C-alpha cells in the first residue's frame, strides 16, 4: 500500500532526523520526502510518500505523534488530499527537435524556464501520473538531468 503522510513539525534543530529516523529504524524505504516552512514560520510541513502495510504504517504514525517536536500527523487515504509535485527536467534539444518538445510541453502545460543551444529546461506541475507521462514522452530526446520536489499534499 502506498501512503502519503503529512507531518506538521516545529521548525527546530534535528526534527527532520527524528522523523526520518522513525521510518529508517523500522525498515521503511521512503519514496519521496519534502520539507518546507508553512505560513507560520515556526512550523514546517514534512510530506513523506512510502510503501508499507497498513498495520506497520499505523505503528509509525503513532510513534511520530510521540515525538516532542511533532504537532500533527495525518496519513492520507486515497482521494482525501490534493497532491501535487513540481519537476524540473533538462532535456537535449537542438534545432531539429526543439519545436516538437515545445509542443509536448504545451500539451502538459509545462513552462520552458531555460533554453540553451543544445538543451532546455522544462518545469511542470501535476500529480504522479501526469509527470510520468510527460517524462515518458521526453525520454526519446534524451533526458540530461532531473530534479523534483516529491509529493506535496493538503487535505481537501
Amino acid at each position, binding site marked *: 500500500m502506498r501512503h502519503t503522510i503529512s507531518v506538521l513539525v516545529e521548525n527546530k*534543530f*534535528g526534527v527532520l532526523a527524528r522523523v526520518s529516523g522513525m521510518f529508517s529504524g523500522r525498515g521503511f524505504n521512503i519514496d519521496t520526502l519534502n520539507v518546507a516552512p508553512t505560513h507560520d514560520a515556526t512550523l514546517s510541513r514534512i510530506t513523506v510518500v512510502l510503501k508499507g502495510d497498513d498495520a506497520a504504517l499505523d505503528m509509525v504514525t503513532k510513534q511520530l505523534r510521540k515525538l516532542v517536536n*511533532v504537532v500533527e500527523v495525518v496519513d492520507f487515504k486515497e482521494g482525501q488530499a490534493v497532491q501535487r509535485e513540481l519537476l524540473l527536467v533538462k532535456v537535449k534539444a537542438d534545432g531539429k527537435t526543439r519545436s516538437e518538445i515545445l509542443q509536448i510541453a504545451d500539451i502538459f502545460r509545462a513552462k520552458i524556464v531555460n533554453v540553451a543551444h543544445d538543451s532546455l529546461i522544462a518545469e511542470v506541475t501535476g500529480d504522479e501520473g501526469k509527470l510520468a507521462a510527460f517524462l515518458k514522452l521526453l525520454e526519446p530526446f534524451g533526458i540530461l538531468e532531473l530534479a523534483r520536489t516529491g509529493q506535496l499534499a493538503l487535505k481537501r
Partner: protein
Amino acid sequence: MKSSTSPSSFPKPEIGKEMKGAECVVECLVREGVDVIFAYPGGASQELHQALARTDKIRVILPRHEQGGSFAAEGYARATGKVGVCMATSGPGATNLVSAIADAYMDSIPLVAITGQVYSKYIGKSAFQETDFFGMTLPVVKHSYLVMNVHDLPRIFKEAFHLARSGRPGPVVIDIPKDVQQSRFSPVFPATVEFRNPVVSETPSATDEQLKQVLALIAEAKRPVLYVGGGIISAEAHDDLKAFAERTNIPVATTLMGVGAFPETHPLSMKWFGMHGTAYGNWAVDQSDLVLCFGARFDDRITGDVSRFAAGAKIVHIDIDTSEHNKNKRVAYPINADIKQALSRMNELMAASKFAAPDTQAWHDQIAKWKKEHPFSFDESKHIVPQEAVQALYELTKGDAIIATGVGQHQMWTAQFYDFAKPRRYISSLGLGAMGFGYPAALGAKVACPDKQVIDIDGDGSFMMNIQELATAKIEGIAAKAMILNNQHLGMVVQWEDRFYGSVRGNTILGDENNVGGPDNPSALYPDFVKIAEGFGIKGRRVIKRSELREAIQEMLDHPGPFVLDVVVPYTEHVMPMIPAGRTVKDMILK
C-alpha cells in the same frame, strides 16, 4: 497549547542574577529537586564540575567509569521513581553513557543525561573528543537537546525533567558545548513548560463508558487474569491494583518489569510469567478467557509466539502510550489511559454499582492445583546451588531488601526465589538486558535509600563488567553489597548451548578452559574476587561449603560497609521452567 507545572517551588518566571551557563545548569538542577548526580569529569564538562563544586545542595558521586555512573543513576531512579541524573564529558565520556540511555529507553526509566560538548565553533570539525552525541542517541531517547544558546538553558532543563518523568517516562539527553557553559548571562527561569505536541501535553484518561465495558467483560468472565507490567510501578498505581484485584477476585501475573507491582506473597499472586516465569502463571494466561493487560507491552519474552498468545481470550490493553496498542499483539479492547486513573476510576465505579465479582471458583481451584504441583523448585545438591543461595538471602533479609541484578541466570533465579512484596525492590535491566548493570545500580539505589539493605545478586560474568565501581563504593562510603553466584561460566549462554547447541562451548568459560574452577576444584577458581575486593579496600568472603552459606550471608548483611560475597556454585544448573524463544506455553520445558 497545554501547559503543566512541575513540582518546583518557584511558581512564577524569575530572573536570576548574572551567572555562567555552568552555574545556571546547577541552579536548574537544584530547582528540579536533584540531590545527587553521578558524574565523571573531562575537558568539556569541567566547567560544570567547577560549578557543582561550589554548591552544597547536590552530592556529586564520582563513578570509576561513565557506564557505572549512568547505571547508578538508573538504580537511583528505579528505586525512587525520581529522575536519575548522570553527566559525562564529550566524546568517549558521552559514548560510555549510551548503554544506560538505551536501557532507560527500553524500561521507561526517568533519566537525564548531561554531556559536555566541544566548543560550538569546533562542532563538525572532528575536534579532540568530539562526537555527534545528539545524532548518536536519537533512536534511544525520549527527547534530546543540543544547547546552542545559553539563554535556552533554563527552559531546556525544565522541559527535560518534565519529559523524563511525565507520561511514559524515559531518558532525555542535554548536550552542552563548553562555550555555552562559560557564557555569562542573566537566566530567566520559567515556572511552567509548554509543548505544541498534544500527545506530550496531555495525560490520557479512560472514559466511564470504556471502563464500564471492561467491568462488564469481567462480570461475564470464567477464567480472567490480570497481566500487569512496569506501567503500574511508574504510575504509582500498585495500591489501586491491589484493591482492584481483590474486589474483582482476579489472579495476577506480572511481567519482570512489573515484579513488586502486586505483592508476590498475596494469595491472588501468580508471581511473574513469560520465558522463565511460573508454569501456573503461563498456563493461566494461556487458558484465560479474559486477559487484562495493564501497563505492559506484549514483549516477546512474555508472549513467545505472539500469534498463539492467549489465543482464547478477549484482551483488554490499557496503556498510557497508545503506540503500544496493536504493536506486538492485536487486541479487541485497546484503551489509552494513565493506568492509575483507569484503576482508581474502575474501583469507584465498582463501589457505586455494587459490582459483584463473577463466580470463578473452578478457575481458582485449577490455579491452586497448578501452584501446588508446579512451584518454582530445585534439587538440593551437596554443593550450594544458586537457587538455594537466593532463597537463603530472602529468608535472612525477611524479604525486605532492595535487590539489584546483572543479566543472565542469576537474574532469573533472583526473581524466582525472592518474593517481592513491594514495588521498586527488584532492580534489573530487563528490556535491554545489559550485563554489568547490577553493582552500579545497587550503588544508586543505596544512595537513594541509605536505610535499606541493598544487595546486588550478580553473576561472575556480569559483576566483572563494572567491577571498578567497588572503588566508588569504598571512597563514597556506599554500603551496597554484592552476592556473586560464581559458576565460572556465562551461565545463560551455557544453558542455551546445553539445550540447543549440543553443549559446544563457544567462549562461555570465564577461567582457564583446561582447568575449570568450581566447588570441586576451588584452586582453579578465577579470578579471586575476595582479593580484588581487598585491593579496593572492601571486605570480602568466599563461601564454598553449604554448611557455611547462611552464616556467610549473615556476615555480609551485618557488615556496615560494602561487601563482596563470592558464592561458589556449580555451572550445571539450568533456569527452569523455560519456554524456548518464539514457541508457546505448550512447549514449556519443566525440568
